[in-house]
């Protein structure tokens, strides 16, 4: 029974995505209820899958009866299961936010569901080309969602995202081509065996493939210096979309990077080709520092959060690149935790903007009393992101630090520890501004966004609930980590 779950997880959102378009013959408001229904089923399936993987191990399905490695295989282990659960819960939860926030057309929800389908597909697949296809589906849905903003600048941001994202995906495809040329197979498990047999880890072909794949996915994860699409895309899309994309799209792309690193190229590759490991660590470390440095200089809050993502994903990739069991657990925990924290932060900025029109750091002054829930949620999530224990942001970092110490990679230890201070640098001034400074009335309030006819300017209960839930989860998840740890280490056998 459980073998059907991965397939259903992908099919249900796709089918559900077509329904709002069909329903638009009758009504233009069918999108939200259909999305709720579809994603409720999706989340339920994802939860069931996670529990199953936790108790009984890996779930593997082949499509249409074509056996692997000739057919496409879906393979769900501890890492995939938790990411799928994240995708399900976050996309479902954000629907509560989206009900009142813009936009609300059928087409929007169709794209929303397509995005979920693409993300889920990326997560459950066990075939590298299938990953490319879902990567592009995710991308297309994301470009469309970014463009749903009212202003022209949303379209420009979406186009920039599209052009850069396509380059990234195409580089990934090229890397897959190289792998195909080397081994003749596209199945991840099979590749892991065939790469050392048929080409050897240190052959130019394989190393080039690695470089292309990492480079391509780095664009999608938005590591420095190929992150340039992210600040525009995050700050110019509607608030729901920012929250959704920031929480999920880069996250699943980072998951894809990890999956290829650990299950296709495997830890042996990293030990044999030291250059690969050091190169990846260098890119990650530079991302950590550069992202924070750029974030500090931003005045727009959402752009600051985008650069913060650059930094945090550097942390995640560093954890995966160290490739010891603890480091991988840490990277996964931080991946999930960051998704929730970043999504919650964007949701909070949305609430603040709707109530007061504030978008820049200086406009945030003194809002602690005017928007208590939004500011409070923002403060809690920001403090968690800095790495103050016992929130989940700290737990991930701690595991990565221990992993790096064990592997004796001291520069990375120093950078990861320093990242706390760097993150503090840009979040502290915002929190200080919120609570310990006086605010002035904001002039842009009248120009910003839409007339009140469609309800904008109001903050619904759903929006507040999302922020509160995110803040609560950041602390609660930290307690769940020890339970999750064995799921991960046992189902990723290459690590042991």
């Amino acid at each position, binding site marked *: 029974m459980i073998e059907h779950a991965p397939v259903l997880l992908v099919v249900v959102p796709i089918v559900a995505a077509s329904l709002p378009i069909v329903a638009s013959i009758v009504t233009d408001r069918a999108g939200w209820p259909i999305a709720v229904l579809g994603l409720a089923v999706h989340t339920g399936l994802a939860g069931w899958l996670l529990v199953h993987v936790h108790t009984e191990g890996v779930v593997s399905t082949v499509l249409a009866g074509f056996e692997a490695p000739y057919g496409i295989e879906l393979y769900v282990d501890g890492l995939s299961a938790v990411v799928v659960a994240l995708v399900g819960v976050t996309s479902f939860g954000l629907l509560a936010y989206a009900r009142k926030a813009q936009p609300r057309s059928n087409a929007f929800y169709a794209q929303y569901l397509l995005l979920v389908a693409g993300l889920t597909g990326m997560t459950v697949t066990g075939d590298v080309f299938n990953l490319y296809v879902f990567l592009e589906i995710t991308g297309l849905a994301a470009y469309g969602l970014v463009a749903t903003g009212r202003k022209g600048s949303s379209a420009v941001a979406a186009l920039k995202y*599209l*052009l850069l994202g396509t380059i990234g995906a195409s580089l990934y495809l090229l890397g897959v*081509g190289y792998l195909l040329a080397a081994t003749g197979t596209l199945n991840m498990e099979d590749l892991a065996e065939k790469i050392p047999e048929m080409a050897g880890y240190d052959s130019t072909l394989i190393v080039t493939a690695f470089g292309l794949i990492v480079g391509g996915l780095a664009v999608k994860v938005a590591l420095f210096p190929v992150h340039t699409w992210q600040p525009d895309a995050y700050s110019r899309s509607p608030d729901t979309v920012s929250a959704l994309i920031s929480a999920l799209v880069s996250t699943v792309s980072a998951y894809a990077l990890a999956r290829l690193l650990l299950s296709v190229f495997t830890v042996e590759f990293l030990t044999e080709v030291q250059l690969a490991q050091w190169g990846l660590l260098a890119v990650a470390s530079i991302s950590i520092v550069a992202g924070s440095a750029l974030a500090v200089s931003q005045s727009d809050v959402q752009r600051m959060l985008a650069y913060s993502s650059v930094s945090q994903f550097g942390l995640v990739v560093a954890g995966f690149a160290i490739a010891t069991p603890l480091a991988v657990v840490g990277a996964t925990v931080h991946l999930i935790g960051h998704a929730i924290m970043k999504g919650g932060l964007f949701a909070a900025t949305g609430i603040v903007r709707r109530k007061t029109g504030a978008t820049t750091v200086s406009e945030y002054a003194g809002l602690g009393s005017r928007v208590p829930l939004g500011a409070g949620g923002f403060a809690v999530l920001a403090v968690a992101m800095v790495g103050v224990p016992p929130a989940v942001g700290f737990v991930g970092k701690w595991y990565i630090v221990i992993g790096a110490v064990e592997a004796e990679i001291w520069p990375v230890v120093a950078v990861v520890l320093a990242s706390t201070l760097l993150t503090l640098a840009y979040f502290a001034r915002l929190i200080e501004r919120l609570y310990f400074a006086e605010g002035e009335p904001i002039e842009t309030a009248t120009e910003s966004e839409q007339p009140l006819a469609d309800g904008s300017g109001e903050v619904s209960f759903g929006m507040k609930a999302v922020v509160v839930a995110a803040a609560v989860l950041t602390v609660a998840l930290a307690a769940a980590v020890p339970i999750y740890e064995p799921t991960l280490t046992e189902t990723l056998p290459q690590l042991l």
Partner: protein
Amino acid sequence: MIDLLLTRYNYYATMLLLGIGLYMLVESENLVKKVIGMNIFQTGIFLFFISLAYVDGASAPIVDKGSEVGQHVSPLPHVLILTAIVVGVALTAVALALVIRIYAEYGTLNETTIKELDHD
């Protein structure tokens, strides 16, 4: 070494197309030309893939009724590229739709002008 340089035409073609595509994407100011550049970039990759499938002296990968299974060109990359072409078409469609909207909002397709307008 020399025969490496002389015989791998497909690599040259690919590199050329990738280079042209990337250059157009980065350098052109006109948004439509950027989209064209993106297409050329992708086409380069597609051609590379397909050229990988080529086996010297093999026939097309179609099994005739009654014939034996002889040497065929590998059909797998062809199939993959068909998928990828479709993806490329979808991307181009979305990109052009965005371009139309940008034109409607800004009245120009010049990247620099749009940037200036945005910063106002």
